[in-house]
């Protein structure tokens, strides 16, 4: 990038080499005919793409998300074969548990919607929950129990994956198609030059016809460089991982009211998180430190859920940012006031699982094809000057 001439110009520069940026680069490269550069301040898997729990589920409360995740799950299922890299995908299903009548009714409503989308989700009786996960304290039966669940739903086709190989797979496939990926290279300025953008990095300047900001929770900062504004905010979420255990837990288990979720990876570790009160964050900075409060809250939740886990040891905890928009839905498309600058953010902790499908449609959109309906539903200009978001189509199934 230090040289002069045509190598300093790209048709599309993608800021952010997370799963979304790399997947868009790959899908755009497949369409051919463009010089594409991906820039990232850190290394692959440094950000939220390397810090999430690897859940891939189709149980959502809006038809848009159900259908998108059906498509994304199929893309994930074929990823290893197509990209030649093992992503440790395991389709053990997702089991949602509800403690309150209100949550149970929501699950029932969602199951109805999911069935209309041909998803085999169903409400299952607590006896069946115990068969599926005998270690659970379902709070049912003569002895009672601490957990007190009233309803459950299960979709056997949901899955978990190991997130990191998705990045390596997309990166390698994109590079093979001519994409340049530069890590460890922050963008420090984005200026207009006619119809183009000029991006400044420590290694020099790069001219771009179009810029795609795929920086996740760091997107508002990148948008500000280009003179734009984004209303999403970073919210710290944490995960812990245990020592590896013999495989025993088939589905991802999640409790609606507490936001607790737990799965067993193919490596045998239990991996999970839980909702914590959102901390005040007036400066909008991304905070990645680990907290003891999370560790003890999660431990209490897990031991109540599965008393037998009391002797299982935690080996590691870490934090990552959920990238949360004012109405909980993503923000995509051209940023108002900054023509040629495209955003794809605000996925609220679910960007990883949605990236395969979103990136595919995003590349088609950048290639001039009629945009997928999510470009209307999630358009960036839906937030008015007062920031009041529309209340319709609000996704309920935000977990963790």
């Amino acid at each position: 990038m230090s040289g002069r001439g045509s190598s300093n110009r790209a048709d599309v520069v993608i800021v952010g080499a997370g799963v979304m940026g790399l997947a868009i680069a790959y899908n755009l490269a497949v369409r051919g005919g463009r010089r594409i550069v991906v820039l990232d301040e850190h290394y692959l898997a440094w950000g939220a793409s390397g810090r999430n729990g690897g859940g891939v589920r189709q149980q959502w409360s809006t038809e848009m998300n159900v259908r998108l995740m059906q498509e994304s799950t199929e893309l994930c299922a074929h990823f290893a074969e197509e990209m030649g890299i093992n992503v440790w995908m395991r389709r053990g299903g997702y089991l949602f548990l509800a403690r309150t009548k209100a949550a149970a009714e929501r699950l029932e409503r969602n199951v109805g919607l999911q069935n209309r989308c041909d998803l085999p989700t169903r409400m299952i009786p607590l006896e069946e929950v115990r068969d599926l996960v005998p270690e659970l304290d379902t709070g049912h039966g003569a002895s009672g129990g601490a957990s007190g669940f009233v309803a459950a739903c299960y979709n056997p086709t949901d899955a978990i994956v190991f997130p990191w190989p998705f990045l390596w797979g997309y990166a390698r496939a994109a590079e093979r198609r001519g994409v340049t990926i530069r890590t460890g290279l922050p963008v420090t300025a984005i200026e207009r030059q006619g119809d183009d953008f000029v991006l400044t990095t420590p290694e020099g300047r790069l001219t771009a016809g179009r810029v795609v900001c795929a920086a996740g929770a760091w997107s508002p900062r990148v948008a500000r460089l280009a003179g734009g504004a984004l209303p999403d905010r970073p919210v710290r979420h944490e995960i812990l991982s245990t020592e590896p255990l013999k495989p025993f837990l088939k589905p991802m288990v999640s409790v609606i009211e507490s936001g607790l979720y737990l799965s067993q990876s193919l490596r045998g570790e239990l991996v999970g998180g839980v909702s914590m009160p959102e901390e005040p964050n007036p400066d909008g900075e991304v905070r990645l430190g680990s907290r003891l409060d999370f560790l003890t809250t999660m431990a209490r939740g897990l031991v109540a859920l599965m008393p037998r886990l009391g002797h299982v040891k935690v080996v590691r905890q870490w934090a990552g940012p959920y990238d949360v928009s004012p109405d909980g839905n993503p923000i995509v498309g051209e940023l108002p006031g900054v023509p040629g600058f495209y955003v794809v953010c605000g996925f609220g902790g679910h960007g990883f699982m949605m990236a395969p499908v979103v990136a595919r449609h995003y590349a088609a959109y950048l290639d001039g094809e009629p945009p997928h309906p999510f470009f209307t539903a999630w358009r960036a200009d839906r937030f008015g000057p007062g920031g009041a978001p529309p209340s319709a189509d609000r996704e309920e199934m935000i977990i963790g």
Partner: protein
Amino acid sequence: MSRKVILCRCEDVTLADVQHAVKLGRGDLEEVKRYTGFGTGPCQGKECLREVARAVAEAAGSDPAALSPFTARPPLAPIELGVLAAGGRRPGSSTRK
């Protein structure tokens, strides 16, 4: 006889795995950790970090002193969930652990 050299005993990461990761361009310990999984088992790299760092430096032809260790994640040592759930006390005991 096998000539396999294990560097990370928790995750069975070999010298050849580390050399392969470096060859693919993973030059620092954070990236090698993610690519090979070294240091993610029960010891969290306490036994193998130095050996892997030496192997990375050798394979990359870089100065070992210039390699930073990967971010250490809490807890310092593995802790039972039951102990954490009891607020640092062993369940059923009255003494602080």
